[in-house]
């Protein structure tokens, strides 16, 4: 695999993977293995999770040459791949995800030695979540983390289906707007 970098730029972890650096593979597993495992285990049992996690990391290794640090953190890039493979898996097996408890709490700020800490985008998302109404927050969490369908969320929350859809869409748009504003700010600072 090849990856193009300016001579002066230090390659990111995924860019090192793309260059065939075996040590970088180990580092990716150290930093993001538990993150991916936790995301997947939330939606299925351990034996199925192992199969899906393997699919996710195969995709990560193959997608590493396409990673662009300016567009997303490595945690976000890998989580995006994990979500795609989870959705593929759900479509393939036609089975609905496991649903654990419905949590009402706000996400905690990302501090401490956690792999998630490297995702600045997650901090932006926390700010967006804090601006949402409790029902909107609950709907988004059930959709994003638990992988429930609109109809399942409507049943779990006793909200009308149309309300569930509008909550999910509005919340996600808000996060995207904040992320775009952050990107524009970064580009402005880089160009200053």
């Amino acid at each position, binding site marked *: 695999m090849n990856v193009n970098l300016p001579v002066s730029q230090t390659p990111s972890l995924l860019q090192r993977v793309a260059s065939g650096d075996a040590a970088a593979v180990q580092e990716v597993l150290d930093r993001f293995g538990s993150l991916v495992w936790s995301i997947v285990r939330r939606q299925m049992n351990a034996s199925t999770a192992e199969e899906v996690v393997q699919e996710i990391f195969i995709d990560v290794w193959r997608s590493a040459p396409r990673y662009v640090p300016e567009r997303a953190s490595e945690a976000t890039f890998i989580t995006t791949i994990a979500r795609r493979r989870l959705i593929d898996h759900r479509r393939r097996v036609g089975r609905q995800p496991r649903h654990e408890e419905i949590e009402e709490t706000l996400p905690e700020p990302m501090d401490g030695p956690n792999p998630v800490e490297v995702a600045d985008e997650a901090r932006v998302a926390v700010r967006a979540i804090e601006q949402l109404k409790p029902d909107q927050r609950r709907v988004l969490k059930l959709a994003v983390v638990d992988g429930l*369908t609109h109809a399942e969320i409507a049943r779990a929350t006793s909200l009308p289906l149309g309300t569930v859809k509008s909550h999910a869409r509005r919340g*996600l748009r808000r996060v995207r707007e904040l992320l775009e504003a952050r990107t524009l700010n970064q580009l402005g600072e880089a160009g200053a």
Partner: protein
Amino acid sequence: MTPHRPDHRDQNADDRLVDHVLGFGPELSVDENEEAEAYEHAVAALHLAFLSRPLDPLPAETRVRLREEAKSILDQGT
């Protein structure tokens, strides 16, 4: 990167993108998939933000298998 402003899009098309990245919608066209990437990053960021409890450790056996698979894939690519 030139961020796209959702408020300038057709509302129905935008709703389809949001549904798609949340795993609800149908498969999308290539153009829509490109546009969906910004939403995919947003939903990934949300997913990370919602992970408020401690992460479960990756099982050791799974880690070994993942490393072996990675070696095979990287060997093919170099």
